[in-house]
């Protein structure tokens, strides 16, 4: 229970001279529900975007499961293959053309210049990537790498994939699907469709769990605000994450549905998921959270149990002032 899953250390972010996050420092415990509150403009959503990798920090760092986010967000293998390959092909083609044309080497030696060019091109890519990664000032911003590690987020304004059905939205989420690879899609149809059936089954279970089976084949763009929030939660859960960042999960959701959502989150917490929630609805956050972090003017003001926060003078002052 007391293990720390996320450490935020002296995080800073400015937008064109306006300081949005100014030295925020806090931890999130595994298996807990942590509420993140604060008056408008306190930097909660910016902090969220920094933690989830959507913004690059100007200073400070975040560690997830003990690893620095910047380490986690290094280029993926796919990306390296694409850029390295492209650099190789381009330089190789230039080498080949140079060999045939201006240098006039003939066919066989031109093959050698082609290969040489390709090697130089890929080498250049690998080299510049290495140099870049070793520079302290370089910031990686690859939020998808974090999701692969088990930290996922939802959006303040729901981002449903509006032209896709609810079921498709859910089926999109699972990681590392074989069918996302074209070679498998074309050549290993059996494997792909077996996996697809399994994912479909899970998605159906998720629909049931969230009690939204009736909108299974509805395009997500036609859903109500509350349904979208549920869909987003379901989509995130389909990933089997460890840490879930929820940005205003009950904004615009009717009270009975809110109740349901809260129950669901508590059940999930008891199953071992960790939640960090930004929410304006005080009642919700007070009822739900194990720990509450109060932010003001871009930094942590205080931290404590809902009881402590409720009676904290500084918090009341921040909200009133």
């Amino acid at each position, binding site marked *: 229970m007391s293990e720390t899953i996320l450490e935020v250390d002296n995080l800073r972010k400015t937008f064109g001279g306006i300081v949005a996050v100014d030295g925020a420092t806090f931890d999130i415990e595994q298996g807990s529900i942590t509420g993140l509150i604060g008056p408008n403009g306190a930097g909660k959503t910016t902090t969220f975007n920094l933690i989830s990798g*959507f913004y690059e920090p100007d200073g400070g760092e975040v560690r997830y499961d003990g690893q620095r986010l910047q380490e986690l967000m290094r280029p993926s293998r796919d*990306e390296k293959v694409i850029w390295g390959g492209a650099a190789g092909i381009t330089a190789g083609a230039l080498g080949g053309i140079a060999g045939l044309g201006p240098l006039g080497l003939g066919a066989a030696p031109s093959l050698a210049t082609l290969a040489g060019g390709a090697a130089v091109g890929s080498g250049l890519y690998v080299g510049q990537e290495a140099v870049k990664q070793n520079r302290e000032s370089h910031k990686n911003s690859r939020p*998808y790498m974090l*999701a692969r590690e088990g930290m996922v987020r939802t959006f303040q304004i729901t981002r*449903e994939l509006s032209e*896709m059905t609810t079921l498709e939205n859910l089926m999109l989420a699972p990681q590392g699907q074989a069918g996302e690879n074209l070679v498998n*899609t*074309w050549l290993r149809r059996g494997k792909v469709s077996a996996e697809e059936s399994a994912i479909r089954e899970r998605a159906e279970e998720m629909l049931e769990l969230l009690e939204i089976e009736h909108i299974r*084949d509805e395009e997500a763009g036609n859903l109500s605000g509350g349904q979208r929030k549920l869909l987003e939660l379901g989509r995130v859960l389909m990933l089997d994450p460890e840490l879930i960042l929820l940005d205003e999960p009950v904004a615009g959701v009717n009270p009975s549905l809110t109740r349901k959502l809260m129950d669901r989150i508590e059940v999930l917490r008891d199953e071992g998921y960790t939640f960090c929630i930004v929410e304006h609805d005080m009642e919700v956050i007070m009822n739900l959270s194990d720990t509450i972090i109060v932010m003001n003017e871009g930094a942590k003001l205080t931290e404590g149990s809902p009881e402590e926060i409720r009676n904290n003078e500084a918090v009341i002052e921040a909200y009133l002032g």
Partner: protein
Amino acid sequence: MAVADVVISFMVFVSIYAILSYGMNLKYGHTGLLDFGHVGFYLIGAYTSVLFVLGPDDPGDFTAYVIGLGDVPFVGTWIVGIVAGTVLAGIVGGLVALPTIRLREDYLAITVLGISVIFQRIVQAEEWLFNGPDALRGYSPPLKSLFPLEMNTMIGAALFGIITLVIWAAATGLLGRERNHESRFPLAGLYAVTTFGLARLGGEDGSLNDAQVAALAGVVAGVLATVLLTALDPILALGVLLSLYTWFVAGVAIAHLYDGLGRREWLAGIAFGTGFLVALLPVPMADSLAVKSLGTIVLLGALVSAYLYAVRNVAWFDSAKITVVGVASLWFVGIWYFVLPILGPLGNGYVPAALATLFRNVVWVLKFGGDVGTTYAVAFLGELTINVDYSRFILAGFGLFMGALYYVLEVTVQSPFGRVLRAVRNDEDVVMSLGKDPFVYKIQSMVIGSALGGFAGALWAMYAQGLVFTMFAPRITFITLLIMFIGGAGNNKGMILGAAIYWGFQQATSQLAAFFPPAVRVNVLAFRFVVIGLLFLVILYYLPEGLLGREEFGSEVSDE
């Protein structure tokens, strides 16, 4: 030229442009990448493939090109050329995508358009590369020398077998889709026969799907045709059988399409089709240019006004407005295909000649006339000289490519990969938040879409038998976009329909333009692009989803 031959060249164009549009559709319709430079990959495919079949450049003559691999064994063939053109277009597509893909969609469109113009300029300026501003010629399409086919040889019979294979597979595939619908014909029984019993392998518990059954049936039919031809030489009977089978399946499909249509919708459609025919009459009939052009425009204007009036004021008409146009087009095409060609002979009282013309157009699989071929004496029709020309073979080949690629693309977009593409199109941030890198998928989409463009380019090079840089103007990209929006962005079937509508319009208007004096033909041909532009605006505004709309996804995935 018989009307059937016009239709065959039309279908060749349709297959090339459908494949070209598949590529655009994968990029824009499925992934949301607005590629205004699609023609650039078409260009790369065309020129690359030609280098593989051209003989070595003769420095003494007036043409110049960088390399001709035509004499190299194995490498210097169309198959290698097409593959190379496709692959190279795909690679270049990926390279172009790398710097541009992260741009805003409007910047992306403009920069990629610029890149396609650069490709075109390079071809134009570099004389050593592809003969500069002059046409690159001197190659011929594959197996051309064998045509018209000599049916008494093994190779002739085999090639006709291939044609049979494709036509049979296509018709059977369509029949397979129709057999489950209500019909006054025993379609299921017929299907069992035309699939040679292979249908049992498919179906509910079978291991083959309909497409595979149709392909196998085609193979069987092709082999049968080859054997029969070698043994007995019944080319006329085979041609008639094949043609009638296709007409029957087409009829069934159309009947199903307009199944629920009431009598008044039918009548309205026929009335509009006839009205259209009448409106065009001044073009061939009138002598003065003013009557030709203004008369037609006034009549067409009246027709369109009547249509719009009916859409606005008649409720049932409004709800059937697209169907009515469909029926009208069918009626119009039917009259043009079957009735107009026989009017001339009938008017002169030559009934046998009229019947012969009708027969030739019905038996579209065969070409009639010419010096080479088998001559039959048929009752009522007189002597018929039959041969199988190259355009039928090209059509079979291109049709096969179009169908096969359609199948592959359907598999692709219905898979989890296709799902990610659609998610990228909807919202990249969500895709990122779910642990998937949109960049990787966009690059793959660009590579495959561009490769499809390259493939279409190689086919075009084969068909056109000569390439000039002006063939690869940005206009081609525009036409591809138009085709995509007519059929429905995100719908592969729509690409075939869109290409058919576009080329139908092109063929019809070129025929009409032939009635104008040569001096103003440029103006007339330009005017049809004005009409196309207007049509495009109308589609974008009133039918942004296209005729077929977006494809349905998800419900059939697990059935495969």
